[in-house]
């Protein structure tokens, strides 16, 4: 029963934190220079008000304000937003008046999820062995080289790597399509590009985690019992060192919600990143608040999940 209680308590904390996050976001937008809240300006941006007199514009502004619920004081806007947000109703965004935001999210979410899961799997499959090798061959050239390559992959902006990959594999070798998101072939390049970052993080974390474990007394104990390197490393060191990896995969997954925006644009992957990051620079404020809401929520849920899994994997931990 401890688990249910624990989860409920954490969910309550998440609920309160989300309210705080939303209020902070609103306040920040409020104090930001420029007219974050003036719909007319948005209207004008696309509209190049050329043929419209300011008086006619007023009619449009009023309509806009009503459609987006801006005709009430700020505190009420926040309240209204929160009321709807927790029922996952976000209304339309400036950049897409056709559809409510939740519909846009629902459509893009599976894509982002697929991309995230595929690349995270790749990152884990490659990153963990790299980290293990590096740790076992610590301070040798094998260590340096494997760490170098995993890191260089995450440090050169993924967008740059993506462009170079397109030029090599699509234009010159013609083995992979440049973009799209239907066939497995189309997924190869975006998945690799997205995986590079987490892969490096995982490899490095794995390396240090394993090194840490290898220095533990119980490893010496295992050797003293006559374990082979193989048995000791696999049965004792790896299992122990893999547990903390869970704690970094969670945040990395949450990061993939926005961190993939450049890759999505480059490879025409219809995911959430495009939606969310563009919101920030376009000042699409309903979408901006909503992306903050969704991202915070997913980070917090991911952390909760990580804690649960962690407790599941590590018998020492009990839900308080």
């Amino acid at each position: 029963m401890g688990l249910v209680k624990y989860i409920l308590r954490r969910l309550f904390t998440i609920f309160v934190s989300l309210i705080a996050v939303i209020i902070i976001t609103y306040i920040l937008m409020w104090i930001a220079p420029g007219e974050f809240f003036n719909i007319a300006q948005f209207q004008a941006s696309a509209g190049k008000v050329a043929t419209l007199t300011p008086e006619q514009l007023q009619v449009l502004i009023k309509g806009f304000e009503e459609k987006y619920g801006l005709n009430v004081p700020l505190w009420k806007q926040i309240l209204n937003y929160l009321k709807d947000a927790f029922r996952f109703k976000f209304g339309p965004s400036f950049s897409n008046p056709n559809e409510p935001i939740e519909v846009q999210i629902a459509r893009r979410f599976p894509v982002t999820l697929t991309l995230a899961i595929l690349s995270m799997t790749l990152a884990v499959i490659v990153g963990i062995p790299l980290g293990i090798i590096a740790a076992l061959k610590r301070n040798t050239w094998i260590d340096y080289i494997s760490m170098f390559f995993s890191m260089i992959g995450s440090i050169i902006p993924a967008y740059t790597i993506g462009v170079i990959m397109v030029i090599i594999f699509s234009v010159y070798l013609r083995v992979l399509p440049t973009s799209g998101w239907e066939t497995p072939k189309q997924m190869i390049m975006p998945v690799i590009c997205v995986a590079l970052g987490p892969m490096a993080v995982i490899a490095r974390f794995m390396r240090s985690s394993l090194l840490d474990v290898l220095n533990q007394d119980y490893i010496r104990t295992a050797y003293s019992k006559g374990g082979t390197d193989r048995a000791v490393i696999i049965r004792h060191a790896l299992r122990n060192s893999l547990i903390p990896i869970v704690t970094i995969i969670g945040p990395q997954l949450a990061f993939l919600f926005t961190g993939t925006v450049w890759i999505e644009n480059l490879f025409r992957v219809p995911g959430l990143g495009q939606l969310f990051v563009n919101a920030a620079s376009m000042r699409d404020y309903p979408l901006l608040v909503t992306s903050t809401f969704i991202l915070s929520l997913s980070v917090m849920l991911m952390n909760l999940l990580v804690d649960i899994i962690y407790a599941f994997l590590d018998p020492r931990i009990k839900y308080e």
Partner: protein
Amino acid sequence: MAELLKVNNLRTYFYRNEGVVKAVDGISYKLDYGETLGIVGESGSGKTVSVLSLLGLIRRNGRVEGGEAIFDGKDLLKLSKEELREIRGKDISIIFQDPMTSLNPIMRIGIQIMEPLIWHRLLSDKDARDRAIELLRVVGIPEYKTRFLDYPFQFSGGMRQRVMIAMALACNPKLVIADEPTTALDVTIRAQILNLMHEMKEKLNMSIIFITHDITLAMNFCDTIIVMYAGKIVEYSSIEKFIKNPLHPYSQGLLNSTLDIEKKEGSLRPIPGNPPNLINPPEGCRFHPRCSYVQEICKEKEPELREIEEKHKVACHLVKGGNLNA
């Protein structure tokens, strides 16, 4: 009694950035079947290293530089990695100091006890399981059948040390090395563990190397005692002779710094100063900077380990004719 282990001029050095640490610098001793040998000294005197060296369990930057260790007719120091592994846990097992950290925290203790049996292919999985349960019973774990599946964190410190002992005994080893097995435990538990070890030794007729910094403990528990200081043996004696006549000033210092109810108050005299830096150990007798009897010769010439009487060797210039002539 037949000889089980004979160590000759063992030297183990650690290569640190600051220089070479001569942790064990030429020690020799022997151990008979069924004998309990105590190795006593302050922390850092090389007592743990001297035994871990035998089994190749020295960490990365340490290296056995020389000497020999004939165990059961084989020189442990010349064995291949695999041959040595065959001996570890089967013929020689170790009980480590800290039962809190020496057990794998996420593995059921039963499995951990089974491991040496399986790794040495002594028993099938099922038999190993039965044996492990039996061992738990033997070392006195209550409800041993259900606790077989528990994790280390569910045990108290004393219980964990019992588990460690069970693990060490799993393959009926010829030699058990107990590396300060009671240091991390409460005083009340200490006695229980020592009793248990004693019991096991009687029952299984194995040899024990008992490493401790508690000289009175060693005097109660061992047949023979080695006092180590700064990587060297300063006194090597059968326990009867040692109790009667501890000769080396350091041994005396150790004895004086322990509480003895029989002695009068005010007799607690700690040894002044700190153990020496083993990268540049003091010239002459390594103990001379802390020795209250120090003389010129001590600073110049390193004393040899001389046999004063039978089964009693001391490395001190000032010991003459079975007495410390201060």
